[in-house]
């Protein structure tokens, strides 16, 4: 698999950023290389580089054009072995409680019906998966997950909702997500977690990071309410384990 990965390309994103693109698809091998490259560039601390944003298939390198000559930086990036960045850092493993269906997951029944599944089967398929966090994007702490069972692949809604609740556990196309703040979304809402993926008043403010793995644990509405109350007091509710815990 790794041998056939596409070559690295450095693309222009204006006069204060480059995109290092290592592929154009959702692929754990590509994402691993992105996260490895992200780690190498963070260690390298190149002068003028202000921020690195890893995504599914590319690394956005922000720089301060007042602090470094953009052409010099481009030369330095071209001099790196972008295609062999080494090992990606080990991710962490999370088990995330989710209350499925009802007011917490208004699209669950429709999604189940669409795929000829009972609600229980749909929940079992969603909660039975092990997901990879490919990237954090869109909103603070919003986790994009890969690993959704094929039987649940569902095109985005035709009419996106202008508001979906914080903690929404949703699916769109081949992806899944855990949302962090109230936001518009065109994805299907299967459930809700009381876990706050982002809370600026809490230490740490963020829980998930690219490269982590996630599993879901179904909970009922009463447990959701009890956990949500603790989360409101700043309890992160969940703790990470080494990634090997999910490998079984």
């Amino acid at each position: 698999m790794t041998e056939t990965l596409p070559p690295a390309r450095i693309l222009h994103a204006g006069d204060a950023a480059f995109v290092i693109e290592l592929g154009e698809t959702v692929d754990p091998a590509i994402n691993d290389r992105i996260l490895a490259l992200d780690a190498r560039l963070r260690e390298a601390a190149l002068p003028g580089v202000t921020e690195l944003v890893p995504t599914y298939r590319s690394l956005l390198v922000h720089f301060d054009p007042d602090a470094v000559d953009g052409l010099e930086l481009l030369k330095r990036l071209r001099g790196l072995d972008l295609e062999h960045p080494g090992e990606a850092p080990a991710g962490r493993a999370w088990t995330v409680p989710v209350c499925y269906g009802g007011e917490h997951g208004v699209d669950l029944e429709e999604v189940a019906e669409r795929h000829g599944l009972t609600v229980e089967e749909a929940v079992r398929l969603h909660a039975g998966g092990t997901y990879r966090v490919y990237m954090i994007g869109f909103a603070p702490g919003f986790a994009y997950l890969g690993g959704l069972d094929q039987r649940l692949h569902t095109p985005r809604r035709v009419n996106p909702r202008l508001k979906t609740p914080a903690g929404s556990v949703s699916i769109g196309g081949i992806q899944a997500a855990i949302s962090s703040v109230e936001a518009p979304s065109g994805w299907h809402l299967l459930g809700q977690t009381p876990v706050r993926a982002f809370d600026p008043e809490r230490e740490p403010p963020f829980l998930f990071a690219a490269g982590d793995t996630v599993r879901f644990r179904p909970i009922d509405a009463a447990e959701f309410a009890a956990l949500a109350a603790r989360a409101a007091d700043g309890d992160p509710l969940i703790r990470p384990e080494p990634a090997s815990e999910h490998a079984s």
Partner: protein
Amino acid sequence: MSDRLLVRAPGPLATLQDAGRRGYQRLGVSGSGPMDRLAHEAANRMTGNQPGTVALEFALGGLVLEVAAERARLAFAGGAFELKVDDKPMPWWSCVTVHRGQMVRIGRAQAGVWGYVAIAGGLALPAQLGSYATHTLSRLGGIEGRPLRAGDALALAEPEPSPHPDLMLPDPPPARDVIRAVPGPQDDYFTPAGLAAFFGEGYRVSAQADRMGYRLEGPQVEHAKGFNIVSDGTVAGSVQVPGMGTPIVLMADRQTTGGYPKIATVIGADLPALAQIAPGGRLRFQSVSFEQALEARRVMRRWLDRLADRLEPLRTGADLDPARLLGLNLIGGVTAGDPLREGLVP
């Protein structure tokens, strides 16, 4: 009783902004910061502040501030707005000392969209994730992560600035409707006809324009291989083209990642001018190279670095030349002798 500025009327979309929130885009947090970085930095420099000090940003005018301090030094920049201290008209793009009980009234925009009020010494505020920049969607920064409201009190970090002459900038940067952009990162997702349309006759800013992005109206841009990409990162100035083929320029409060191909990126030197084009205003994109974009950035930097030398003693009342504001050439085209453009048009 601490020294403060009281917000008597906020006008629309008034927020506090510093240079932006750095280092958290990898965790989904928007960079935020000023829509017009040139004007934000100019306002700070006029007060003697470090660039990037937290300042007020507002849209379209209507901001009224009351001075609740012995004195404060304020600088005004961005677009062109009517300005009065009590009932006395003052030039915009100026720096004045105001005293307890005085009312600073900012009228409607005469040109542009975004205005700035910098405060000598800055404001005393708690930072969130390393920045004072307000991002209302994630409720971060500024005052409780929200736009300013009537009744808000802004505590001055450095009360009673040392006496300083009032100043004005006689030649503020003119409005501009030719906006330079570097093709990419996904220009290969568009047909040659699509690229020609984009860099062709031009666009209007639509009514859907805010701190997140400006949706444009005009020629459709043809995609070559669909309009969905696997999401990657965005920058201020990224021009996304969604399915309907009309571009959206991503601005300060943009989402950190996006799933539409990006045909081009507006250069840092021209993003301030684009931000100042009001809905209905026209613009045309001009393709430039990375090297030309870097040179344009250096020209902008030199202009800012020399700003102090261009300041003149304030003239008010009868001395205030109305032609100065009209000389801003609102959305009228590229002005000869534009200090930010000299020698840059390829």
